[in-house]
C-alpha cells in the first residue's frame, strides 16, 4: 500500500499526464486536486488557504469519469472564483460520487492554464492495498 498520497506529471507531447497513488480513494482525489493546484501555481502550494469551507459535490457514471468530473469541477470553480484550491478535504468517494470541502488562495498570476481534464486513457483502480489513477489534462 502507498504509505502516503503522491503524484507525478508524466511525459506527454502535447498535454500533461497526471499519475496518482494513495492509500485511500479519498486521499487519491485530494491528491489530484493538490496536483492541479501545483500545476496552476507552478510550485508546490504553501500554506495560506483558510480552513476548507466550500462544499463540493460531484457525480458521474463511474469512478474514472468521477475523477475527470472532480477535476473539471475544480477547474470551473477556480476560473470563476479566481482561486486555486490548495486545501482539499475529501470526505467520501464512492463509485459515482465525491463529497469534499475546499479552500483556496487567489494568486496574482497563474503559471499554467489548465483547460480541462479528459477521459483519454483515464483510469482509477485499486492497487497494492491502495488506489492509483492516471488522467490527461489539456493545458
Amino acid at each position: 500500500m502507498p504509505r502516503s498520497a503522491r503524484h507525478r506529471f508524466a511525459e506527454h507531447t502535447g498535454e500533461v499526464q497526471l499519475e496518482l497513488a494513495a492509500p485511500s480513494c479519498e486521499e487519491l482525489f485530494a491528491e489530484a486536486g493538490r496536483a492541479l493546484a501545483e500545476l496552476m501555481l507552478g510550485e508546490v502550494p504553501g500554506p495560506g488557504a483558510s480552513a476548507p469551507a466550500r462544499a463540493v459535490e460531484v457525480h458521474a457514471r463511474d469512478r474514472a469519469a468521477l475523477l475527470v468530473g472532480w477535476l473539471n469541477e475544480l477547474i470551473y470553480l477556480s476560473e470563476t472564483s479566481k482561486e486555486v484550491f490548495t486545501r482539499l478535504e475529501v470526505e467520501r468517494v464512492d463509485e459515482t460520487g465525491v463529497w469534499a470541502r475546499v479552500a483556496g488562495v487567489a494568486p496574482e498570476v497563474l503559471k499554467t492554464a489548465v483547460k480541462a481534464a479528459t477521459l483519454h486513457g483515464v483510469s482509477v483502480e485499486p492497487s497494492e492495498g491502495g488506489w492509483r489513477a492516471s488522467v490527461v489534462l489539456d493545458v
Partner: protein
Amino acid sequence: MASVATRISDVLYEVPKDARRGMHVPARIVADAELMAQIEHDRSIEQLLNVATLPGVWGRVVGMPDMHEGYGFPVGGVAATLAPDGVISPGGIGFDINCGVRLLASRLTRAEVSGVLEPFVHELSRSIPTGYGRHGRLSLTDEELDRVLEGGCEHVIGALGLGVPEDLERIESRGRLPGADARKVSPRAKERGRDQLGTLGGGNHFLEVQEVETVLDAGAARALGLFEGQLTVLIHTGSRGLGHQVCTDAVRTMDASLSSHGITLPDRQLACAPLSSPEGQDYFGAMCAAANFAWANRQVLTHRVRAVADRVLPRRGEPGLELVYDVAHNIAKLEEHAGRRLCIHRKGATRAFGPGHPELPARYREVGQPVFIPGSMGTRTFVLVGAPASEDISFASCCHGAGRALSRHAAKRQVEGHVLRKELEAQGIVVRCPSNAELAEEAPVAYKDVSRVVDVVVRAGIARAVARLRPWGVLKG
C-alpha cells in the same frame, strides 16, 4: 506503427482500412520521411486510426505534417463524417473551440517604426489582458453575451462598432456560424466566458509584432496586400473558458449517451453522438456559439491593437491596421465535398480552400484562402494560400503550426527561460511574458521545424507559400 503506413509519394503515407479491426476508412498522413519519423515517435498515428473507427466517418482520416499526440483525436487531424447521421465528436474539435489565428497588416515598414517598436509592444502588453483566468474590460450581461454568441463578429462590428465592415469578409465564415444557439451554451460556460471577451489567455496563445521578411510569391502577396519590410501583427487565441466548458459539458453528456446510440469506442475521449441526435444537435448549436465567441474575441483584441497602433505608431492618413484574414484551427463545419454534405472536424488543422471556391471573398477568390502557419515563439511565421489539391487530399485542410516535438517538461529540461529570454532579446525581439518557466515551455526547440512542415504541404499541393514573417515583439500569456 511504422509498418502499417505505406509511403505513396514523397510527402504522403497511407494506412489501409484493413490495417486494424474496426477502421471504416483508410488514414492518410501528409509528411516526408523525417517528419514521419517524428510523428511515429508518439501515439498520434494510433489516435488517428482510432478516429477512423467512428460511426459515419467518410472517405479517409488525414494527419497533417505537424501532427502530434493529443487526447482522443491527434492534434493536426482532419476527419469527415457523413451528415446528417454520422457522428460529431467534441474531442475532434478540442476544448479550445475555434482557437485560431488572424493577421493584421499595416502600411508602414518595420524600419519606419523601429524607434517606437518597444513602446508599441509595451503598450500592447498594458492594453491586452493575458494569462489564465484573466478578465477583460468587457463584462457582459446575459442578453449581451447571447448576442455575441449568436451574432459573432457581425454583432461585434455592426452593433458594438469594434471594427470596420470591411473586416467581415476577411474572416472565415464572416466570423459567424449560423448554426449557433446560445440556449445550448450552459450557464457554467457563460459564467466562465462572461468577462473574457478581449483577452488573450495563457498556454500557447500569443500576439506577435512582425515584419514581412521575405515575399515568396509576388502575385499572391500582392493579392493579400503584403510587401517586404511591412509591419504586421499576428493574434493567436480562441474561445477561452467558455469554449472549454462547452466541450467539457458535451463530452460528459455524450460519454453517458454512447450506449443509447449503440456506439463503442477505443478511447472514451472520442465520445460522440450522431449529428442528427438531440445530443449532437445540442453540441453543434453550442459549439457554433463558442466559435462565434472566439471570432468576437479576436475582433475585440484587434480593436485594442488598432487603438494602440493609432496612439503609438506614426500615421500617414491611411487606414491603420487592415485585417488580412482570420482562420480557425479547432472547429467542425458542415461543408460540401465530393458532392456530399459532410461534417468536417479540424483539430489543430485549418480550412484551406483553393482558388475559385465560392465561399471565398471576391478579393481572395483567384488566389485561394489565406492560411497562417506560426512557428514557435520567436521563430518565423509563414503565410500560405490554399491550393487545388487540398480538396482531394485533405478535405481542403492544411496544417496549423509547427507542431510540438517535445513535452513541456522535456522543453524545460533543455531550455532555461531566462536564457531563452536573453537569446530572443539578443535577436532584437521584445518579449513580454511574466514567467520564465512558461517561456521555456514554448521554446523553439519544443517544436518541429516550421519550414519543413510548410515545405511538405506545398509539395503535396495543399497550399502555396506566399511570405515569411519575422517576429520583433512577442506578447505571451
